[in-house]
């Protein structure tokens, strides 16, 4: 039952990143960390304490940071660049495009404070377009883990995964429900609950809200499949197809513009192989604003009630 999925605790996904990079640093002497005047927000204190020589403070100069990281790969370092998601992507898109993606460099672009749940800082900082920008770059792997434990595991795993990676996580405390010390497999969708009526595909913070929506749908008598697409690219097409072949309708949920994000990736698979009704939960081509994370998710249509409503719409379309 979906209702049996319970959080272990509430923690920030970025804190998972902080623990993960410390462990990645212990596992592999080539791991180095860079930041652009945000070491506290990015939870780098423990890493810096243990590996002061493997930390680079770039100052408020994100474009420079990406270029330096690309350069550091030449000779074998594995640079993790760290700043907020907006300054990790939009700010430095061409530097990533040319010096990292096109040049095929092993840079891990680690981005916190993604999406609406950044909260009060408002739209200038709340990027809702980064998944799209990053997945459009040839050769870029895009990972959006769902909770603290998974962010930690993904942070550790990408050190051993050759090639450029965009790792997206967030600011607030959030339900932490996946197992501690899990093994993270890049590119492998995670089936959290099996069902037969509808599939909820989600990434990041929206995975927990999809579980909560799944509980409501279950009470209404539906059998719900919930799949965590922590790797948006490369997408686990086999898992997506397997699920929709069974359920024949789906909802996608992401803290991102519905144009260009997870939903689009899922829809392409469906359109190519098995067209089915799909409803999209995400921001609808809008900027965000200041407010508390939970208020913002509600106002912009990303709370569990909106996922339930989207699911009922998809189910109704299937029945026609």
């Amino acid at each position, binding site marked *: 039952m979906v209702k049996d999925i319970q959080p272990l605790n509430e923690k920030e996904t970025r804190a998972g990143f902080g623990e993960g990079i410390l462990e990645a640093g212990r596992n592999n002497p080539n791991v180095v960390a860079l*930041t652009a*005047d*945000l*070491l*506290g*927000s990015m939870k780098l204190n423990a890493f810096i304490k243990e590996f002061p020589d493997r930390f680079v*403070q770039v*100052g*408020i*100069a994100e*474009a*420079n940071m990406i270029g330096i990281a690309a350069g550091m790969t030449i000779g074998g370092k594995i640079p993790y660049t760290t700043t907020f998601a*907006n*300054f990790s992507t939009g*700010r430095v898109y061409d530097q990533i495009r040319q010096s990292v993606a096109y040049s095929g460099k092993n840079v891990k672009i680690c981005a916190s404070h993604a999406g609406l749940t950044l*909260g*009060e*800082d*408002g*739209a*200038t*900082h709340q990027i809702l377009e980064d998944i799209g920008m990053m997945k459009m770059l040839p050769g870029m792997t895009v990972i959006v883990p769902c909770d603290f434990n998974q962010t930690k595991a993904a942070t550790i795993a990408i050190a051993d995964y050759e090639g450029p990676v965009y790792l997206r996580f967030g600011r607030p405390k959030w339900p932490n429900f996946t197992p501690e010390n899990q093994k993270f497999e890049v590119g492998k969708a995670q089936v959290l609950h099996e069902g037969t009526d509808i599939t909820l595909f989600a990434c990041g913070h929206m995975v927990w809200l999809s579980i909560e929506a799944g509980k409501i749908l279950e009470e209404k008598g539906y059998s719900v499949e919930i799949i965590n697409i922590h790797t948006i690219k490369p997408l686990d097409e086999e898992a997506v197809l397997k699920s929709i072949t069974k359920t024949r309708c789906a909802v996608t949920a992401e803290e991102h513009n519905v144009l260009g994000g997870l939903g689009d990736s899922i829809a392409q698979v469906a359109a190519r192989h098995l067209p089915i009704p799909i409803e999209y939960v995400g921001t609808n081509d809008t*900027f965000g*604003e*200041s*407010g*508390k994370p939970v*208020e*913002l998710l509600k*106002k912009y249509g990303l709370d569990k009630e909106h996922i339930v409503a989207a699911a009922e719409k998809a189910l109704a379309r299937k029945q026609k």
Partner: protein
Amino acid sequence: MPQLKDIATQIRRDIVRMVHGCQSGHPGGSLGCADFFAALYFKVMQHKPQPFDMDGGDQDLFFLSNGHISPVFYSTLAHAGYFDKKELSTFRKLDSRLQGHPTTHEGLPGIRIASGSLGQGMSVAIGAALTKKLNNDDRFVFSLHGDGELEEGQNWEAIMFAPHHKVDNLIVTVDWNGQQIDGTVEDVAGLGDLEPKFAAFGWKVLHMDGNNMDEVVATLEKAISLTGKGQPIVILMKTVMGKGVDFMEGHHEWHGIAPSDEQLAKALAQLPEPAELGDY
């Protein structure tokens, strides 16, 4: 008209109350720049709050590039008459025009460009100054930038552009408080002495103590007297982060955290409410 010093005190009260009210925002840089904002909007600039005109023809314009110090900007705009000071209580809350960082998107009078992502405002100020010249508008463009913010490379593209194009109706001010998020500006980035840097790029460089009101007014007026001579002007403004609240002064930790109830009371006790303006 109240004394500029009283206006600055009122702005400081608003800053700590606003940041406390939503438990979020940036008091440090805001408090440090309160004297500058009071001087600029209540003495130096020629501007018309009502009705707000985005184009600002025949007015002086101001651009805040270091958008995180929005509390000082919002409080100043409210007291200057751009909007009702009651609205200050909505800062950073849902459905507010007073976004975390200044924005035109919600239509707040007095804001002419979004800022918050650092390092973009000097280019915008240059653009507005070029338009004034093309429009034969002889008023000036002012802008403010953080010292940490100068680490962004776009600034240096702008710093190179302005003298080359003789943008001499532009008065840029740098809040040289020596602090940024991760520590002192020297520890983080080694910015060094800004004077020879700007001078080498071709700017007229002035200095001022940004927390000495008489000096702020005199220096801004001097800057105006130096416009129209083929060179852009930069004022290197020394301020104390958190100025006016003793436990915040000089500490980068107060860059972006909110005071507790107890800290708010302590802060307000150091900033007596001026008779003429009043809290929102």
